[in-house]
Structure formats: structure tokens, C-alpha cells
């Protein structure tokens, strides 16, 4: 797809301004691009390179290191099903098989309607709630095949508003209040961040 749209470019500039070096914003901007297009498009990587002053190859080299950046379009809902030991013991693999047969796709592929992508993943650190899966990185605990069917039905019907589209993490768009902004002075001139100074001024850990 494409470069940042106007609104997202403004957000991109805001994100870049949070760091002493523009280059540091590369990964947050990759998230932003993925949120915009549903995946990290080549044009978007080129645009990020322009914005942070590095080459497109460097952006791509960084982005391809991470599985969570999708270089090709994925479904609106990326479902990561854990088949690592804890989940496996209580039905993770059965869940994956159920998901594959219900949606008619294999792990790693996307349904024809572009709604769902299934991924077989290793431990997602939810062993106490096994078998677990994630939808766009939002945890779904103790997922039985029936619960999975309900989940799919809910997603199709748009009844899960808390789950954003396209594997978005959402953290890149958070608003950072003035007092939580780390100093954007270069590291060599760096004094303590504002929040650290504020906390130490009051002399306690309360902040």
C-alpha cells in the first residue's frame, strides 16, 4: 500500500520528537505504518527512512528481524495459537487443528475474505490460562474449541470492539504527558528525565 497519510505523518513527527535521535523512532514508526495499512508496505518503509534519516535498506533490515512486522498483507484478525508445552498439554494443538478446519486454512495463511490469519506460535507467556491464543495480540484465555467458535462469530459480527484491526499493538499512539517525556536532549547533554527528577524531588517512590 502506501506511505503515511497526512494524519499519520503528523503522528510520526510527534513520535520522532520523543527521541534524542530520529533514528530511534524507526520501530515505533513501523508499528504506525502497520496500523495504517495492516502490514508494513515497502513504500511505508521508504517513507520511514525519509522521516528518520536512514536508508530504506536499514529500515527493512530492522523490520525483517521482527516476526510481528508483517511484510505482506495479513487478515484483519491475526490469531496466534500457542502450541508450546503448557497449552499443548491441555489442548493447544487440538485448538490449532480446530481453528484450521473451521476456517479452512493452514497455519500461516489467511482466509479468502481477508478476515483471519492463523499463526502457530511458541509460548505467549499465558501458561496459567492455557490453552491460550491471541487475536491481534489481545489475549484470549482458556480457549476451548467452542469458545473459539464464539470468538470467530463475535469477530465476524463486530462484537469485539476492544480488538483493533491488523495486529496493531496500539502502544505507539499513546499520549505521553509532558512530565513523562524523557529529555530530548542529546545523550551527552542528558540530565535526569523529567519524571525521574520529579520523583526524586519528592523524595519517595510514590510517583
Amino acid at each position, binding site marked *: 500500500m502506501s506511505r503515511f497519510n497526512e494524519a499519520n505523518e503528523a503522528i510520526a513527527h510527534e513520535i520522532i520528537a520523543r527521541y534524542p535521535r530520529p533514528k530511534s523512532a524507526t520501530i515505533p514508526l513501523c508499528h504506525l505504518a502497520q496500523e495504517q495499512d495492516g502490514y508494513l508496505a*515497502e513504500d511505508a*518503509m*521508504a517513507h520511514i527512512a525519509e522521516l528518520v534519516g*536512514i*536508508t*530504506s*535498506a*536499514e*529500515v*527493512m*533490515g530492522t523490520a*525483517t*528481524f*521482527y516476526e510481528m512486522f508483517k511484510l505482506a498483507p495479513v487478515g484483519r484478525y491475526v490469531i496466534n495459537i500457542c502450541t508450546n508445552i503448557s497449552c499443548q498439554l491441555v489442548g493447544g494443538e487440538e485448538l490449532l487443528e480446530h481453528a484450521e478446519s473451521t476456517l479452512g486454512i493452514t497455519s500461516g495463511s489467511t482466509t479468502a475474505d481477508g478476515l483471519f490469519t492463523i499463526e502457530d506460535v511458541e509460548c505467549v507467556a499465558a501458561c496459567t490460562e492455557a490453552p491460550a491464543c491471541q487475536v491481534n495480540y489481545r489475549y484470549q484465555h482458556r480457549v476451548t474449541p467452542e469458545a473459539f467458535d464464539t470468538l470467530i462469530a463475535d469477530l465476524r459480527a463486530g462484537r469485539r470492539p476492544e480488538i483493533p484491526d491488523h495486529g496493531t499493538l496500539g502502544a505507539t499512539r499513546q499520549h505521553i504527558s509532558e512530565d513523562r517525556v524523557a529529555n530530548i536532549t542529546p545523550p551527552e547533554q542528558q540530565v535526569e528525565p523529567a519524571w525521574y527528577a520529579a520523583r526524586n524531588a519528592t523524595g519517595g517512590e510514590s510517583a
Partner: protein
Amino acid sequence: MSESPRPVTIDQPVTITVNGSEVTAQKGELLIDACERAGTYIPRFCYHSRMSPVGMCRMCLVEVDTGRGPALQPSCMLECGDGMSVDTESAKVRKAQDGVLEFLLINHPLDCPVCDKGGECPLQDTTVAYGPGESRWVEEKRHYEKPIAISATVQLDRERCILCDRCTRFADEVAGDPLIHFMHRGSNTQVNTFPGEPFSSYFSGNTVQICPVGALTATPYRFKARPWDLEHAESTCTTCSVGCRVSIDTSRDEVLRYNGVDSDPVNWGWLCDKGRFGFEAIKHEERLVAPLVRSGDSLVAARWNDALDAAVAGLRSVPASSIAVLGGARLTNEAAYAWAKLAKGVLGTDNTDCQLGDGLPADAVLGLPVATIDDVCRPGGTVIYLGPDPKEALPVLFIRLRHAIVNDGVKVVELTPQSTSLTPLAAASLTYRPGEAGVLAEAIAAAHGAGAAGVDAAGVDAAGVDAGRIAAASDLLAQASGPITVVIGRPSVAESASTVVDAIGAIVRRFPDATFLPALRRGNVIGALNAGLAPGVLPGRVRRADAAEWFGAAWPRVPEVDGEDAAGILRAAAEGRIDTLVLLGADPLGDFPDASLAEQAFIGARRVVAIDLFLTESARRATVVLPATGFAETDGTTTNIEGRVTQVVRRVTPPGTARSDWQLAVDLADRLGADLGFESLADIQAEMDELSAVHAGLTVAAAASDLDGVVLPLVSATVADPAEADATGSDSASASDSPAAEATAADATVADEPASDADPETAADVDDGLIPAPAPLAFVAPAPTTVPALDAYAARLVVGSTLYDAGTMVRHARSSAGLGPAASIRLHPLDHSQLGLGTSGRVRVINGARSTVLTAVADGSVARGTAVMIGGLEGGDDSALIDVTAAVTDVRLEVVS
């Protein structure tokens, strides 16, 4: 790989034990280098002494005991400390080496028999020397498409890659073009480019040279030879004047590739792609193979006898002042000297110029104290850069400068009419209005004199630069530790050389102890200047007038009057005052900044004798064309920008009956009834060493030296006294302000020194008692050039250079031809929008009667009121606009509908 540890100065010695014997190392030196210097080679793939260590390949694991018991550590990541004990051969080390190699070979294809690297492959060699002998790997290896083109000249075979990070580190750290990068992760990691953005770095060929496997190969060499069939000979690249040392690899009388040789004072092993792949022009089918003589409208092949007769016909019995010799920067030092002797000593003409309107007057190049590249790159130093974009004109100098700026804290103050590759790196980059370099340099000098109140005192904008930035640059220079070095050259050929000379004058007055590195592009331009191929000078950095007696005693004659420079020669020819114009590898019609003057000169000159490798545009119009030998076809020495004299060697047979340039000078002199006295190169070298003060004894030494050559001494450390400058007739208005007055006092002391401790050789000549050696030439700042005001409807032109211009050698090297950018004229976006350009974007660029049509492009890096072009491009037509007699080139733009 001819990589060796970087030379190290041991001022903080530490004692380490390597395999039981004690070794002195520099504290902080990398263990891998210290061991190698001590004769213990540690195998490695990722480590390269000219790049930062990364510890990627683990091949250099050795057992190190720093007092806590021996442990395996990568020696490329470990700095030497006192008492360190190293074992590079223990059983544990051997096991580690076996293991690392087995891992590296897991995915490495065993296609050595068809791999270009086979036979000179570090992986192959290291496996034989240190490897386990056999692999336990039975599974399928990783497969990729073989090979992919990552640039026009570099092919990448990812299967062979061992992920050592050398090429990617080079691209990022050394070249500053990180267009290749590791992609993906784990066993899928590969080096690649971004889709649609090839590795189009000017330095891409170096990655092929440093690749420790056959993953990166250069298209011109692929499948051309096996390493064991190659003969290697060290020489010096003369594509530009940096003087990079190269290894010429030949097989069966053909040059097949160049590799960079690590010369510590010069190129550090790096080459630019134009130089590296320039060998393709040597064997080009369009090389001249026989002399050509004009017969009516065509040039026909002739016997040498007839061609030489035809050539001397126009040299015999014509007044000396009606003969001119243009060019000579392609020649070796020896050939340049032979030609200087022929032109000045036999023909008696001083109309010689080895530069074609794109250089600086011989005064400024020969008369200023010279800085070496190492001086300019001295850690912590401060540099004023006033020259062409180094990446485009002198690429390896850019690599050295970039390293100095990024790693060694060198501060560069750039004075330029357009943004360049140095602009993002410079501590201060002042964009002056074209033609006003002198005004800007004066303003910087003046801003200093005012001390703390500098900003107020110099509170005026000069040359279009904001007063605050001038004051900041002045402060930066005032805070310099050690003497300032100045790189001087021509930032733009659309402003006259005199405007740059004005700036040099101001810098000399402000910084009397500054040293200067000329950034002139043509291969052996400094050698030719030192040999006297410029108006008003004789060999050895002396003025014609001062040295007439000295050379008169040795040569048949000496010119009686100072001659003209290239522009003057062409003007004289245009006015019918030139009978014979000799082109020594010069192509004024294709190469001179003022095309209309060159054209008129060819109409006006009665005879043109062209000596060249190819039938250039100018040679096509010549009366006689004599084929000459080129690079790798002739022995001799060459001189780089620092005045470093190094060898060039003959490795292949010249095409057809081409003769070497010095031989041609001897042949022509012979037919004129004069004997140059040269039967061999050694004869010329002996005479240069005898007669030229600057070469005294050194040409022979350089010819015998191996790697770094010898730097010509500075016989002239004299910086001209402005008072003397006035006495010679110029009325220098700006010489009377206070910094200049201070400089005068300082100059006087500087000027005294060299006179008292004159060069030993010259002193010896004085003792011979006959003729005193001529005084060395000194730079005299001339009266400032008057730059006309820019009217509001015009744009002032900047014509920069580019590496891949449409020059003769580039056009004839297959890999480089066609890599140049498209011709255009770039304008500030506001100026561009004011033109109200439609979609076509074509404008007519007009300078009086001269005009051309170009595509106008908006570029935010261009200053307002300025128009920027790249010179020498196909269809660029910059030379159609420039009038070399004017200080600046102002153009009007009209939209072409």
C-alpha cells in the same frame, strides 16, 4: 587478501605473552593485530583492520588468560593489556576453530571449482589450514537464487555468504552508503538491498575485494580468470589525482581487474568504482592503434614516419609564441617533463597548460605550503574545505575525510556554492553566492579580528551568508588545535578560478601557518605542474623568469615571455595567433568549460596535433592524431594531490603501434633537429632529479620504492608578503585591514626560514658555483576579482562535477558508462515555482548569446537565486553557457512550452 594490521605507534607499551614468547604491544591495540605483528597470524573472516571489529564470525577465538584463568575469547574484540597471556594453538583453540569452520560450512555451497574466489578464498584457505577436514552435516543446505545483482557491477550469491558483516559494515562505516543490510533473522539472515534501491555506491567494488568468500563478485571479472593464472603488480591509479595504490591483475596480456592496496598515507586499501572498473577502457576496441593524418575531410591511417613529419611540419619555423601545448595531466611525471622540455626547452613556447579551465593557477598549487592527506585528516584537526564535492571528484579523499570527521573528531568548515556530500558531515557549511568565495573568506577572517565582539563587528551578511554563521565558523577556526589545513579546488567551473584564489589569499592572510591540499581532479595534474606544464613556470616549482638562467644552461633554449593558460591559448587560437595547437590527451571541445571558445579556437588554429588514446571530439578535428600508450601500458611515476610520487607500471602491450608520451616528445624533438637527451625513462628521471629542485634525487627513489612512494619536499614554504604583492603592481584593497597586517608580520618570518635552510640539493648546486638555483615559486595573492551584482531576474549558475560524467574514460569503461545522472538544472523550490513550470518542466537557460534547453528540477538544497548543474554530462551542455572570461555565470530561465 592483502590486509595487514594498521601501522601503530607504541607510546603506551604493554607486554603480552603470545604462545610463550613476550611481545610488546600498544595498550588498547586489538589482540588480533598485536599477534599478527608479532608473527602469529590468527584466522579471521569478519575482522578487517580498516573497520571496527564486530566479533561476528568467531573464527579468531584464542585462549586468553588475563589472570583469571584461560578462556576462549575473540581476539578481534579484545584490547591488549599488560600481562595478558595468549595461546593461539592450544587444543581448546583448535577445537573451537574446527567447530566454527564446521558451522560456517554448514550452509556454504562447495562450488569452489566454479567460484571466482576459489584459489584466493579466505574461507577455502582457512578451512584447509584450520578446518576439521570433513563435515558431519548431511542435511540439505540453504538455497537462494544465484546470484542476484545488487548493483550495476556487483553480484551477490547469498548461498555463499557467511554473514561476516564486512560488506554491510563497509557500506555503513566507510562509504556512508548503507544500502545493503542484513535482512531477516536466524538461519534466514541474508544480506540484501531494499527492493528497487540498488547498492549504487561509488565504492561498491570494495565489498567485492573484502568479501572473505565468493558471495560478492564484480560483473567485469566474473568467470574471467582463475586467481592462480593472474599476475599481480602494484601501481598507482591515475583515474583521479588521489593516487590510490592498486594491484593490477593481468593474465595473457590483458588487465582483468584492479584491487586496492593498503597504503596507509593514501587510500587504506579502498578504491572508487570509477577507478576500479576503469581498466575496461584499456582494451577498448575504439583505442587508437595507428597514427592518423588528415586528408581532406577525413583522417586516414598513416605510417609513423609520415605522421611525425606532418606533426613537426607545423612546429618548425613558426614563432614560438604561435605554438601551444594543452593538456598533460594524463602523462607520467617523466612524460610530462619530456614534454615540458620539448615545449619550453626546444620549441621555446610557454603556452602550455595541463589544466583545462577547471583547475587553479600554478601559483596557488605550487606556491603554497602543501598539506598531505594525513595532515588534513589529523585527529582533532580543523579543515577549511573550498573545493569540488570530494565524493564526486576525488572519491577516496572523501572516504578519508569522512573517516576523519566521523571517527577522529576533525572539524570541517566548508565554503561552497551548493550542498555537497560533505555538507551533512561538516561542522559548519557556508553556502556562498557563486563567485563570492573570496568575499566570504574575507568576512570569516574579519569576524575573527573583532574578538569577543566579533558578531557585532562583523555584523553584516557576506556573500549571501548570515553574519551569525560567519562568526560561528570564524570562532570554530579560531579554536582550532594546531595549524589549519585547507583543501583548495574549484567548487564550480561556472565561477572563475580567480574567485577561489581570492579566498585562498584571505585564508593565507588570516592563517599564515595554514597548509594547503589541492583538490584537483585530473590524474597527474600535480606531476605535470611540477614538471612545468603550466604557463609562467619551469620544472621544479619555479617561475620562468627566476629559473630562465638555470634551465638555459641545460636546455637548448628557454621561453622568453610568460605564456597563456588554457583559456588564453584558446582565445589566441580563436584570434588566429596560434599556428599549431598540440593536445596532450586534452579534449577542449568535449572538456573545456567554455564550448564556444573551444569551437572558435579550433576554427582559428591552423594545425592541431592530438596525442590521445581515443578519437575524442577534438582529435576528430585534428590535423594529425598520434596514438599514445595509456595506464598499465607505460612505466614511470605519477604524483598525487599531496605531491606524493609513486610508481606506475607497464603490464600489458599497448594496442597497435601506440607509443609512450615521452617517446613521442623525443621523436618530435628529433625531427626538429634537437636532442632531448632521453633514451630511457632513467635518463629523464636523472635529469629531473638534477635540474628540478623539487624532484632532487626523489624521482629515482620513488621509482624504486614499493608502496607509499615519496612525498616531494616543500621547497617553497614561502607565503607571499602582501606588501610584495602590491609592489608587483596589484592594488590589493583588502590587504590593508588589520588581520592582513598581522599576517604580513608573520609572513615575513615564515618567508625567511626556507631561504636559510634551503633544500640540501639546491644548496649543493649553489656550491658548484656556476648558476644559483632558482628561488622557489611563492603564491602571491592577486588583486581581488570584481564580481558583478546579481540582478533580480537572473540565477547565478553553479556547475559541479560528478564521478560518472561523460568523460572519455568513463564512456569507454562498460561498467561505468551510463551510470551518470540525467542532465538537469536544479533550482530552489520557490524559484522553481515562480517559473510557473508546467508538467514538462523544460526551460531555456540563457546567458547572453549562449543558451541551452534543460529540465528544471526543484531541489530544497539549492540556495535561492542559484541554479545548479552537473558538468560534463551527456546532454548537459553546461559548457554551452559558460563564458570563461567572466567571473561568474548568470543565466535567465524561460519556460519552453
